[in-house]
């Protein structure tokens, strides 16, 4: 038997101080299985030990928030007795090791967080960052990730309706795969994970347990022979068919009154689900592992407690309902097993083959979990960009920009995702700034988007954090929907480096300010740290997933324009080229300060635009983001297959600056809109009009055919994968 000591603890990821705490809590040396439980519960992933102190600063409350952070997913009231349940989660590391399965199981995991709460998943999104497209490995990863997301999402029948993709060499060895799921539940039928009821059975539902994804730490144990292939921690393979059965089985069971508590088995599988359920309920739990459905022979208690096999749930049931529950679960051909019961001991007791493998007091396991306020070093404020040189003609700059990997069409990606299954998708990818999904049987719809601009965050984490939140708010607003709340996925480097922790703290500060100013709280989220290869960190990437609601979906607008409309620019333009794509793609520079975010202007301009949309004055609307005004106009022309004649005068900074809080609005009556804007004190100017032609005509008279523009825009991915 392996000697459990400080060295072994260290190889399990527990430092000397943490090991000391373990000894103190246990009052003896822990068993091997107990050490495993401590190590995963106190891992960064489960304990948020580096991030917790900062996450507390995010606003999480609003009258419409039903459950904020702390549950499996956030829950908000969206009217008509319905709730939106949503969360975003990363699967970065697994997606680099095995892109297809890593991304697929990422989708599976986030779906479970949502239907665990009683919600039927109605939309998936994915925020992706990849390395330099010139590297062959990037192509392999992009291909695998996109296939994996599609392979899983398409099969479970949840439409993938949006997302984002960026490329940057900082992600070369460390791509980011952040998946978001939104589900719908009745507000009076939300299921939580707090266990209750001494004697109630603890029930295992779903796939059998194998040795999948057991904590890397196990490699250090002499129970494993590193040369023995069979016992290596294995890559998790997703089984979307079983997930689909699990969704239907759980939702059917949730129609009954059988469930006391329910929790998916995610990271650290049986350990974290049982510890969290019992811990939240303030009760104890006893597990008998002999009864766990097993896929492989000879599994140890340690392996079963740490396995990350997918497509499994843990339930606490009312005892008198357990046979009925079994019938429902087995109808869906899933495993069902009573593997323990709730106790009043305040302890988790794990038995296997007649022996007690673990017996740990729950309160200290969570209360004494390490919490670090790690040193931070603030990113120095970047100098504002001075005047820039550059004589690239407007048309050439446009054609080059709209073709670059960060701005080109994502059609190749979203064409591989089923975006219509469910029959409620009102706006699919590239039709509006946020995806619009109707709530079946109502006139109401959700507007959903993900966004962050990592090049801003690395230059100025606080402004970048603000901007990420503000851009999702703007995306939702541009459809006519009211933004309600966000989920976030904080992807950063090694938190033990003060400059990384500094990025984290500042980004949180900026996000918090934006959430506050926009009445747009955080209701769920995820933190992914140590995203580094060979000491080089990724760009700090706080991905934001925003959700809004529109009460009358027939009023929602997209960004496709049609002939006979005038184009009005709403918001102030200074010509901010710092950190812009124009600077990077046309001038080959990545310096300067990102565009400042004026949250008051953001709110004012957005509320104005939304009111105009809901009043029926607006035919199409597009927020101005990456690439600036001219890119926004070009995207509108392509989406509507409609020509544009631009009239406003301006330099490159005017057309390509990335000033915030701006929209392009297509209206019948520009004068009326300008008048309303003036009355509200909102800057607005007419910039051109649409024409029944196949050309985009620039203010200098140069015309670009839409075909040429489309060729440039659509070319990158198909050529890359030809």
């Amino acid at each position, binding site marked *: 038997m392996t000697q459990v000591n400080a060295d072994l603890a260290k190889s399990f990821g527990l430092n000397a101080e943490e090991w000391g705490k373990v000894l103190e809590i246990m009052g003896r040396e822990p068993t091997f299985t107990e050490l495993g439980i401590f190590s995963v519960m106190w891992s960064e992933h489960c304990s948020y030990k580096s991030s917790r102190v900062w996450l507390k600063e995010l606003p999480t409350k609003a009258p419409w928030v039903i459950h904020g952070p702390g549950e499996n997913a956030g829950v908000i009231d969206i009217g008509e007795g319905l709730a939106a349940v949503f969360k975003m989660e990363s699967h970065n590391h697994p997606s680099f090791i095995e892109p297809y399965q890593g991304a697929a199981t990422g989708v599976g995991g986030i779906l479970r967080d949502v239907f665990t709460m009683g919600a039927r998943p109605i939309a998936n999104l994915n925020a992706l960052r990849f390395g330099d497209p010139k590297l062959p490995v990037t192509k392999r990863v992009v291909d695998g990730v996109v296939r994996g997301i599609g392979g899983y999402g398409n099969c479970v029948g949840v439409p993938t309706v949006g997302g984002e993709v960026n490329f940057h060499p900082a992600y070369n060895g460390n791509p980011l795969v952040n998946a978001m799921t939104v589900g719908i539940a009745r507000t009076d039928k939300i299921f939580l994970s707090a266990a209750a009821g001494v004697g109630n059975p603890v029930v295992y539902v779903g796939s059998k347990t194998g040795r999948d994804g057991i904590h890397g730490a196990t490699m250090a144990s002499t129970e494993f022979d590193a040369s023995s*292939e069979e016992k290596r921690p*294995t*890559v998790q*393979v997703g*089984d979307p068919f*079983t997930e689909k059965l699990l969704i239907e089985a759980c939702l059917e069971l949730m129609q009954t009154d059988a469930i006391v508590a329910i929790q998916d088995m995610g990271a650290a599988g049986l350990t974290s689900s049982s510890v969290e359920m019992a811990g939240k309920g303030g009760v104890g739990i006893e597990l008998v592992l002999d009864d766990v459905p097993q896929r492989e022979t000879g599994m140890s208690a340690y392996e079963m407690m740490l396995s990350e096999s997918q497509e499994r749930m843990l339930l606490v049931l009312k005892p008198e309902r357990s046979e009925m529950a079994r019938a429902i679960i087995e109808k869906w051909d899933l495993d069902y097993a009573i593997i323990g019961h709730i106790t009043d001991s305040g302890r988790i007791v794990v038995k296997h083959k007649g022996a007690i493998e673990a017996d740990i007091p729950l309160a200290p396991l969570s209360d004494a979990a390490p919490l670090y306020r790690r040193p931070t070093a603030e990113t120095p404020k970047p100098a504002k960009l001075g005047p820039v040189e550059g004589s690239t003609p407007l048309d050439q700059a446009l054609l080059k920009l709209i073709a670059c990997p960060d701005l080109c069409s994502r059609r190749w990606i979203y064409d591989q995702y089923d975006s219509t299954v469910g029959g409620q998708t009102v706006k699919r990818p590239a039709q509006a700034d946020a995806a619009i999904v109707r709530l079946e049987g109502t006139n109401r719809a959700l507007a959903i988007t993900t966004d962050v601009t990592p090049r801003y965050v690395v230059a100025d984490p606080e402004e970048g954090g603000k901007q990420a939140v503000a851009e999702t708010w703007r995306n939702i607003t541009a459809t006519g929907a009211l933004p309600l709340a966000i989920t976030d996925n904080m992807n950063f480097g090694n938190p033990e480096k003060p400059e990384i922790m500094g990025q984290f703290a500042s980004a949180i500060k900026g996000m918090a300010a934006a959430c506050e100013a926009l009445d747009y709280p955080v209701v769920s989220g995820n933190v992914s740290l140590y995203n580094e290869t060979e000491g080089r960190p990724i760009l700090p990437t706080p991905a934001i997933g925003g959700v809004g609601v529109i009460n009358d979906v027939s009023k929602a607008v997209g960004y496709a324009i049609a002939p006979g409309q005038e184009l009005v620019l709403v918001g102030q333009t200074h010509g901010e080229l710092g950190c812009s794509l124009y600077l990077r793609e046309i001038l080959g520079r990545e310096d300067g300060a990102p565009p400042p975010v004026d949250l008051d202007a953001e709110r004012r301009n957005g509320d104005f635009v939304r009111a105009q949309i809901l009043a029926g004055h607006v035919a199409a609307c597009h927020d101005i983001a990456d690439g600036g005004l001219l890119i926004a106009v070009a995207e509108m022309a392509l989406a509507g297959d409609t020509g544009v004649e631009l009239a406003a005068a301006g330099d490159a900074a005017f057309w390509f600056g990335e000033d915030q809080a701006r929209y392009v609005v297509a209206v019948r009556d520009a004068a009326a809109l300008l008048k309303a804007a003036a009355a509200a004190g909102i800057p607005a100017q007419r910039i051109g009009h649409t024409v029944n032609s196949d050309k985009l005509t620039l203010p200098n008279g140069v015309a670009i055919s839409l075909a040429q523009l489309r060729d440039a825009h659509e070319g990158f991915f198909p050529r890359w994968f030809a």
Partner: protein
Amino acid sequence: MKAIVNVMLKNGVLDPQGKAIEHALHNLGFAQVGEVRMGKVIELELAEIDPAKAKAAAEEMARKLLANTVIESFKVEIAA
């Protein structure tokens, strides 16, 4: 010369397809069926005439492309 490359999921890696087939065969009344695993077979026509060289080439192709060695193992056979 023909090389036949057999690619199977490594032991311990979940095989959802194999599992589903097992289940379907049971439902069809084939009670005698135990574990089912599903893999791929790739038949390659090779210009090579030396069996050892053909085998080595096919193995290289398997490592580089045909198998995903993170989760799969492979076996090459040479047929006349």
